[in-house]
C-alpha cells in the first residue's frame, strides 16, 4: 500500500494542476497540502521532504516575478500615464456608433460641451463629446489595411509597403500634433487640451480617409473627391476647438476684438483647414 504513494506524491508535485485521481483533494495551494488530508503520514512525510524546498522555490520565484512586474510598472508609469490612457479607452458600442455618426454628419449635433463631473471629464462612455483613443487607433489600423488593399489592386503591393505606410502616417500624425502644441505654446493659450486629446483629434481624420478610400475603390475618382470634401472634419474641428481654445465670450458667438482672440481664431481655422489637406495628402498617392 505504501509503495505506490510516493510516485503519486511525486507526480502531484510535478504537475499540481493535473486531474487528481482522488477528486477530494483538489490541489490549489502551492504546498500541495491538500493531498495530504486523508493520507497516512508515512509517505506524506517522505513526500514532504521535497515539499518545503519546492514550495520555497515557488514562493521565491513568484515574489521575484511580482517584484519585476512592480519595477516595470513603476518605470512604465513614468513614461506613459497608463491611468490616463485607460480613460480614453472607456468606450462602448453605442458611443462608437454615435461618435462615428457625429464625425460624418457634424452639422446635426447641437451641444458640443464636454460634461464634467467634479472637475474631471466624464468618461467617453457617457458623453459623446469627450475625445477617445479607441476610434483613432482602430481607424489607423484599418487605414493601413485598406492602403494595402488599394496598393494591391494596382499591383504595387509588397509586405514592407504596409510598414512604410504605417510609419509614414504615424510620422505625419506626430508632425501635426507637434505643430499644434508649438502654436499653442507660442500663442500662450491656457487650455485644458492635453497631448492625448490632440492625438485623439488628429486621429479622427483617419475615419474620413477610410471612407474616401473605400468610395474611391468602389466608385470613380469624383466620388472620392466628393466624399473627402464631405467627410473632412472641418466642422467637427471648428466646433470642438472653439469651446476649448477661444475665450468664453468668443465661444458664444459674441464678436470680441483684440489681437489675442484673433490669434486664437486663426489657430482654430488653421487646424480645421489642415485636416482635409492632410487627408488628401495621405491618400492620393495610394490611388493614382
Amino acid at each position, binding site marked *: 500500500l505504501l509503495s505506490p504513494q510516493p510516485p503519486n506524491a511525486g507526480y502531484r508535485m510535478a504537475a499540481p494542476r493535473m486531474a487528481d485521481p482522488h477528486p477530494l483533494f483538489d490541489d490549489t495551494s502551492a504546498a500541495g497540502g491538500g493531498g495530504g488530508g486523508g493520507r497516512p503520514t508515512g509517505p506524506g512525510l517522505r513526500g514532504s521532504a521535497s515539499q518545503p524546498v519546492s514550495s520555497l522555490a515557488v514562493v521565491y520565484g513568484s515574489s521575484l516575478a511580482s517584484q519585476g512586474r512592480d519595477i516595470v510598472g513603476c518605470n512604465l508609469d513614468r513614461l506613459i500615464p497608463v491611468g490616463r490612457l485607460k480613460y480614453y479607452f472607456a468606450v462602448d458600442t453605442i458611443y462608437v456608433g454615435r461618435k462615428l455618426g457625429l464625425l460624418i454628419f457634424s452639422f446635426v449635433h447641437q451641444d458640443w460641451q464636454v460634461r464634467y463631473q467634479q472637475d474631471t471629464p466624464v468618461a467617453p462612455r457617457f458623453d459623446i463629446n469627450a475625445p477617445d483613443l479607441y476610434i483613432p487607433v482602430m481607424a489607423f489600423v484599418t487605414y493601413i489595411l485598406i492602403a494595402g488593399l488599394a496598393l494591391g489592386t494596382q499591383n504595387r503591393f509588397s509586405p514592407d509597403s504596409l510598414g*512604410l505606410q504605417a*510609419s*509614414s502616417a504615424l*510620422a505625419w500624425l*506626430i508632425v501635426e500634433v507637434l505643430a499644434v502644441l508649438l502654436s499653442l*505654446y*507660442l500663442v*500662450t493659450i491656457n487650455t485644458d487640451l492635453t497631448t492625448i486629446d490632440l492625438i485623439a483629434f488628429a486621429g479622427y481624420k483617419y475615419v474620413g480617409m477610410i471612407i474616401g478610400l473605400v468610395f474611391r475603390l468602389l466608385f470613380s475618382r469624383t466620388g472620392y473627391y466628393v466624399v473627402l470634401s464631405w467627410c473632412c472634419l472641418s466642422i467637427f474641428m471648428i466646433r470642438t476647438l472653439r469651446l476649448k481654445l477661444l475665450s468664453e465670450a468668443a465661444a458664444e458667438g459674441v464678436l470680441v476684438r483684440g489681437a*489675442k482672440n484673433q490669434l486664437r481664431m486663426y489657430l482654430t481655422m488653421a487646424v480645421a483647414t489642415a485636416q482635409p489637406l492632410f487627408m488628401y495628402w495621405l491618400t492620393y498617392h495610394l490611388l493614382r
Partner: protein
Amino acid sequence: MAFTLYSLLQAALLIVNAIAVLHEERFLRHVGWGSDQGIGGFGEEPGIKAQLTNLIRSVRTVMRAAISARHFQSILPSRTDSV
C-alpha cells in the same frame, strides 16, 4: 511616400541644431530677438516674439550638452580610424 519615422527624427535633429546655432550676441541682438531685450512687462501676457525668444534660448541651453556629446561621439571614431 517614403516619409518614415527615421527621417522625421533626422529632420527634428537638424531643426534643433539650426535653432541651437543662432548665436545670441552676433546675430539675435541685431535682429532684436536677444534674450534681454525688453521682454514685456511682468503683468501682461508675453507676445509671440517673447515666446519665440524664450524658446530659442531654452533650446540652446538644453541642447548644448546633448549636441556637444553628439559631436564628441561623431569625431572620436574618425580619429581612431586614422591611427
